[in-house]
């Protein structure tokens, strides 16, 4: 009665095609069209706009000997600038992590007057020219500025200190965190929170143990984006930084400084270090997320 269990030889000469693992091998084809076209175009455009120019950067820095390269990227001032740039970027991204979560939370969960305006304002840092942002922030925070005048008497100096750098970077990075967390928070299942509550969890426990883990990937992404963007930021920072070597000089300023002395290779060398760092970080974050998605993934 079983119709297909016969050990007869297969009618078509087929089988070993996909033994190698890839189910796409051989005659298999994709149902949705345009894979070749879109992937091809993506790679082409990516290569043209991003990879080709960036490889020029790499090659330019290779015009240095290894020793020159090392000197260029590890001079004490450059090292100090890394510390400031990465440190301030990290701090700013960290602040954005909390502030962004707070803003996203408030925007998603609560109703209050002016909510839409606040929502719209979140994207402002994307739109305002960075230099303008830098000038305005400096104007606000300087000793005689709207905010600075109240802080200065208490010995709190923000403008022209590393703290100013952090503030400018917070401004730049905020939308990244808010805009990645917001949709995830919107999608998060109310039932999970209800389940936690009915199991006796307090609101804080629910947030900490249930909500936070579920938005963690988005938070990390937002953090990474804000961080990556902050590392490269120049326009808004230099106005507020004070730019004191070893203290408040950011790495992009080092690059500009090298360019001012027509040291293209040295400038690209430092740029390459920054780029590599950012790239590795993005890669790690993406991999981390992929892993998280696979683990927690699937329909629940």
């Amino acid at each position, binding site marked *: 009665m079983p119709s297909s269990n016969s050990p007869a030889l297969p009618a078509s000469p087929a089988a070993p095609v996909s033994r190698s693992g890839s189910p796409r091998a051989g005659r298999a084809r994709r149902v949705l069209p345009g894979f070749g076209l879109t992937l091809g175009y993506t790679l082409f455009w990516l290569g043209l706009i991003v990879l080709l120019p960036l490889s020029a950067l790499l090659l330019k820095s290779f015009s240095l000997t290894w020793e020159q390269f090392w000197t260029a990227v590890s001079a004490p001032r450059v090292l100090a600038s890394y510390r400031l740039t990465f440190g301030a970027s990290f701090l700013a991204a960290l602040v954005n992590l909390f502030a962004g979560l707070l803003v996203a939370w408030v925007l998603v969960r609560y109703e209050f007057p002016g909510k839409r305006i606040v929502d719209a304002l979140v994207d402002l840092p994307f739109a305002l020219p960075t230099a303008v942002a830098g000038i305005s922030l400096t104007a606000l925070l300087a000793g005689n500025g709207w905010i600075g005048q109240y802080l200065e008497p208490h010995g709190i100096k923000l403008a022209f200190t590393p703290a100013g750098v952090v503030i400018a970077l917070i401004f730049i990075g905020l939308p990244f965190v808010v805009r990645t967390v917001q949709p995830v928070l919107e999608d998060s299942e109310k039932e999970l929170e209800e389940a936690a509550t009915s199991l006796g969890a307090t609101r804080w426990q629910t947030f900490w143990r249930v909500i936070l883990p579920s938005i963690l990937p988005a938070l990390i992404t937002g953090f990474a984006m804000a961080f990556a963007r902050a590392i490269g930021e120049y326009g808004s920072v230099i106005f507020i930084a004070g730019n004191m070597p070893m203290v408040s000089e950011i790495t992009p300023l080092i690059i500009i400084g090298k360019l001012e002395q027509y040291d293209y290779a040295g400038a690209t060398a430092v740029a390459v270090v920054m780029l590599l760092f950012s790239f590795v970080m993005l890669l790690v974050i993406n991999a981390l997320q992929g892993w998280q998605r696979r*683990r927690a993934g699937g329909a629940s």
Partner: protein
Amino acid sequence: MSIEIRNVSKRFGDFQALGDVSLDIASGELVALLGPSGCGKTTLLRIIAGLEAADAGSILFAGEDTTDVHVRERQVGFVFQHYALFRHMTVFENVAFGLRVRPRRTRPSEAQIKAKVHELLSLVQLDWLADRYPSQLSGGQRQRIALARALAVEPKVLLLDEPFGALDAKVRKELRRWLRRLHDELHVTSIFVTHDQEEALEVADRVVLMNKGRIEQVGSPQQVWDQPASPFVYGFLGDVNLFHGRADDGAVEVQGIRLESPEHGNVRNAQALAYVRPHDLEIRPWVAGGTGIAATLDRAIVVGPIARLELEPVDANPDNPGSGTIIEAQIPAQQFRDLGLAEGDKVLATPRKARVFVEEDWVSP
């Protein structure tokens, strides 16, 4: 713990989701809330749990008003329709959650938690899955983990919202039996929501039939099956054939067939609806002039002990709006074979028993 639901109402905007619902549930009972989609089952369950607030009315646990008791402190176990398992926690962590979030004073030690969780996992027969993540489980397994998690806090009341809704027919059948058994073991007062009448009838001690935000009937499975309080209940509890007729003097005439209906003894010449369950139809080969509804055998499904027949009334009468649609009948497979009927044959169907509702009955609910 007993539960009393007193005159609970709930609106969502303009929509009356629950209208003055009252219900008593005895300690240790297993009650099914049964009704069509959107009738307010989930809403009622959530109000009992404290996840939603009633607009009016109150919920009493063991005689005490719970209005001011936070969900957290109500000690209800709630099992959500889509499980709502914590995705980023292992099965073990999921079940342990309710214990871990206790205030330090009352929190069991790690060893106790471990023992308790494993005990619960054994109870739901999934001890070997402790280290998996929810995404690595099948639907039925997830369901049982959700239950174990709810039980971990030793709830006084267990509330289950369509616990088997998202499962395969086969798994669903297994789990419902398993739930019954579990309840018999633990005897915790339980309410479960379903829209599957078979499930409700099979599992529950009592069935609460809801429709449009109101309770239509409350009773044991047998009671609601045998004495449905309204046409809605009759129709909802199983397949049914509907015949239009006239009630007069304790009997109803449907297509020339007289059915006794003593409870309508004082009704005179009123429109009536006669509900006949498929297995209450008697089927005989057609004979000219025989009593019964003449029909053609459209399709016969004979697998297992029961033959399900679909009959098409021969002489669809335009004055009788009930006619013209298919009549369904169920007879023992053996009997069907004995009758020697083939598809296309003409038969006579006679209701053996009917539940009759006259005009005034329809108005009530």
